[in-house]
């Protein structure tokens, strides 16, 4: 029998520190698979965030540069401008990307920096212990919204992907999930497409991943995966948000 599924080359053989069932782990593998399949391990450079994925450099077998919390897109901008033929991806959580990093993200996207962002939306600050994230759902309990997120006091969940999609500088944006084999397969395709977009010099690409955080959601992994589809994806619908090449060439 021949091997039809094994650890991708760009993923070091190291055990993840993530909790059981965590979406970060799955997404890591998908990125590594995409890198392998596109043959860009030699020239990919990753930028991990402050967040649960802060030590992602222990897992990816590509060059990596840590960014201060929220500044992934600015760091990636600096790198990519200097190394235009490398494939630069920043990997950021929802707190990192859509709270403290709002300005850096918006403006890198607006400049149309030719980089790829993997945006892990787990509706919570994972690493710091389950505080409200910009993407936390209304009514969702977190350690800083003990009675549940209130629209009045805490604001609404932010849909940053849709907002970025409005900027002329962005090229390709899709929202995926990693809670089922079908969604995982789609997410992999999206990540690959985003890298391809960058390889073609087409501009800013971003893949948002709805990512289960069983620990802070206080659910079993299986229930967390169910919650992604049944609750989270209601607020954050899956699908392509922007794909300029698929559009008529208006600009």
């Amino acid at each position, binding site marked *: 029998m021949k091997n039809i599924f094994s650890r991708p080359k760009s993923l070091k053989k190291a055990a*993840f*520190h*993530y*909790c059981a069932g*965590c979406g970060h782990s799955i997404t890591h593998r998908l990125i590594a698979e995409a890198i392998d399949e596109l043959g860009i391990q030699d020239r990919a450079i990753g930028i991990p965030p402050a967040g*649960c994925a*802060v030590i992602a450099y222990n897992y990816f077998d590509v060059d990596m540069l840590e960014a201060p919390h929220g500044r992934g897109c600015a760091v990636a901008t600096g790198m990519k401008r200097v190394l235009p033929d490398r494939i630069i991806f920043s990997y950021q959580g929802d707190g990192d990307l859509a709270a403290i990093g709002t300005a850096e993200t918006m403006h890198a996207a607006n400049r149309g920096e030719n980089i790829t962002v993997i945006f892990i939306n787990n509706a919570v600050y994972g*690493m710091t212990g389950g505080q409200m994230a910009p993407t936390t759902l209304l009514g969702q309990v977190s350690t800083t919204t003990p009675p549940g997120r209130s629209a009045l006091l805490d604001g609404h969940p932010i849909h940053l992907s849709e907002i970025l999609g409005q900027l002329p500088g962005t090229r390709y944006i899709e929202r995926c999930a990693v809670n089922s084999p079908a969604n995982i397969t789609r997410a992999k395709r999206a990540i690959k497409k985003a890298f391809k977009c960058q390889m073609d010099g087409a501009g800013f690409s971003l893949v948002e991943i709805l990512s289960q955080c069983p*620990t802070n959601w206080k659910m079993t992994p299986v229930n967390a995966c169910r919650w992604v589809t049944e609750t989270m994806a209601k607020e954050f619908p899956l699908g392509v948000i922007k794909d300029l090449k698929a559009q008529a060439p208006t600009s």
Partner: protein
Amino acid sequence: MIKKTIFAGFGGQGVLMMGYIYAHAAMNEGFHVTYLPSYGVEVRGGTANCTVAVSDEEIASPIASEPDHLVVMNKPSLFTFQNRVAPGGDIFLNSSIIDARPTRKDVQIHAVPVGDLAERLGNPQVLNIVMMGAFIRKTGLLPPEAFLKGLKHILGERKKAAMEINRKAFAAGYELQT
């Protein structure tokens, strides 16, 4: 008198809770107490530990470089901490899943099959309270009622049912002969 204890184990084993209840109970008894949990990235799916110091005077450092007691709920924790224990100290270990034993001769080893006992009680979650039963008995640091009072206080009024099974768990550990 100052006694320092390190509690260590997997994230899900209620390790921090053991130390927390113990600290609370000691505080209620009028001791000076410090409780120092581990925190941060290492809790992600990894191990957790906490240090409790109980003293009748002000505590200089909440850190236990040489703990008097060590309570370990899994094997990695045993390896991490066993050599730190002060000579003459005690090591309590969860013998249900730790097959290894420390090689040191200058400490007392208390092998407590907390997993088995808890499963026998029909609730694998209370293995930490079982361990505390054994711990309180062997160390004699607190009267058992003091511990149970602390436990009750932390569980709160709403968890009366939980208190029942916890009390049983404590008794199972307390009455165990090792």
